[in-house]
């Protein structure tokens, strides 16, 4: 049984709201950098950046962050996680990094991402923006900007599909 929870219009409205919240919280976007976690987070980060540009009229840097090398399950997995590119086009020291991911679940990816960011420099703050928070945290981690809270059970999966990956925009619960 799969159920569409969000469609294209919903996702677009959510991104618009999150962009406004990011601006409000940081009183503008002057010392801000968006960093998307490979791969789903990168698409969301680019969309938020485009929205910020619409609102504030300024381009904001979007970085990509690969967390494969920082995962805590590297010794227990059967296969090595795929290593993708990490490219953060701005100087991280002293600025606010907004980490972006598609789904927040156990929080382990975010822990890995924070370690990866710290190896790139010392940001003045790290904030977290996620499109979907599905609960079931295994670490004390909380998002600053949440698109939608979706209560789930452990055996369900939440899939974020985006046009960037060649599908239509939707969030599906299975």
């Amino acid at each position, binding site marked *: 049984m799969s159920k569409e929870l969000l469609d294209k219009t919903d996702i677009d409205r959510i991104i618009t709201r999150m962009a406004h919240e990011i601006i409000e919280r940081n009183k503008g976007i002057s010392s801000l950098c968006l960093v998307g976690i490979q791969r789903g987070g990168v698409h969301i980060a680019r969309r938020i950046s485009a929205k910020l540009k619409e609102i504030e009229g300024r381009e904001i840097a979007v970085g990509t962050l690969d967390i494969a090398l920082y995962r805590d399950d590297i010794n227990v997995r059967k296969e090595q996680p795929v290593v993708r590119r990490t490219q953060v086009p701005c100087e991280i020291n002293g600025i606010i990094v907004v980490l972006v991911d598609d789904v927040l679940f156990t929080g382990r990816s975010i822990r890995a991402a924070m370690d990866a960011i710290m190896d*790139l420099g010392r940001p003045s703050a790290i904030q977290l923006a996620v499109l979907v928070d599905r609960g079931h945290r295994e670490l004390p981690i909380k998002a600053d900007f949440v698109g939608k809270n979706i209560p789930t059970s452990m055996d369900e999966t939440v899939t974020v599909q985006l046009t960037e990956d060649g599908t239509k925009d939707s969030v599906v619960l299975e």
Partner: protein
Amino acid sequence: MSLRSKDLTGIKDLSAEEIGLILETAAGFKDVLGRDIKKVPALRGRTTVNLFYEPSTRTRTSFEVAAKRLSTDVINIAISTSSVVKGETLLDTAKTVLALGADIIVIRHNCSGTPHFLAKNINASVVNAGDGTNEHPTQALLDLFTINERKGRIKDLEIAIVGDILHSRVAKSDIYALLKLGAKIRLIGPPALVPDCLKDLGVRIYTDMNAGLDGADVIMMLRIQLERQGKGFFPSTHEYFRNWGLTAARVARAKEDAIIMHPGPMNRGIEIASEVADSSRSVILDQVTNGIAVRMAVLYLVSGVQG
């Protein structure tokens, strides 16, 4: 996707997809090398042993740096100061190293096939760092990575490999790898060092350097092993340079944007002129840096496959 084997014994055993996976993974590791903190915790708690039965500085150092950047502990065993001189067999040495807690053994040996023998007999991952005149797979992988970085592809490129093909494990690994990815290869050198039978691999053979370099996209020079001089392979180093040395005039025969590669250490004035080695088209130092990224990728990927 992952590698099929816990070991990297040679390019011969890899599929084109596996080579592609290693190169893509290496691109991610190259990002790491460009940072202030050039280290990731991926293989924390693992141990890499460098077992070198032949002298080597650059390959051993490159593997050592790669392993340390991945947070593994590294132990270097120099055979000249080890129990091997007391008569210990290779397998006994390897088993001892395993008992000390090694997860990955990087081995260089003057006998072809040593890594294959070791890989079959122990559970740790074995990585070939050069075996006799057989293969030097990580050198070929870093060459491919460097070519792809500069040219954006490997397929259909015209690659000229110049020098002592017969004795070169680097050349063999390069030929296997480049053919698997669809490049076109010309081998250039004295007839005694580039025997005609190599044609069977699907490459073209030239004894005339100028003809061989015509329109090449990549010029890969090999080191002339000076210990072979005086054994009848070529008359003298002076004459070698006159016929097969890479000079600026000869580089001009290749494509305008051709790149020049050399696995090192270079013999300036024997196989390559200094002005060429130091020119803007030379990617020789890029090869050294890329070697670390590629070896990180190999260590990372083999340690993900169960023995």
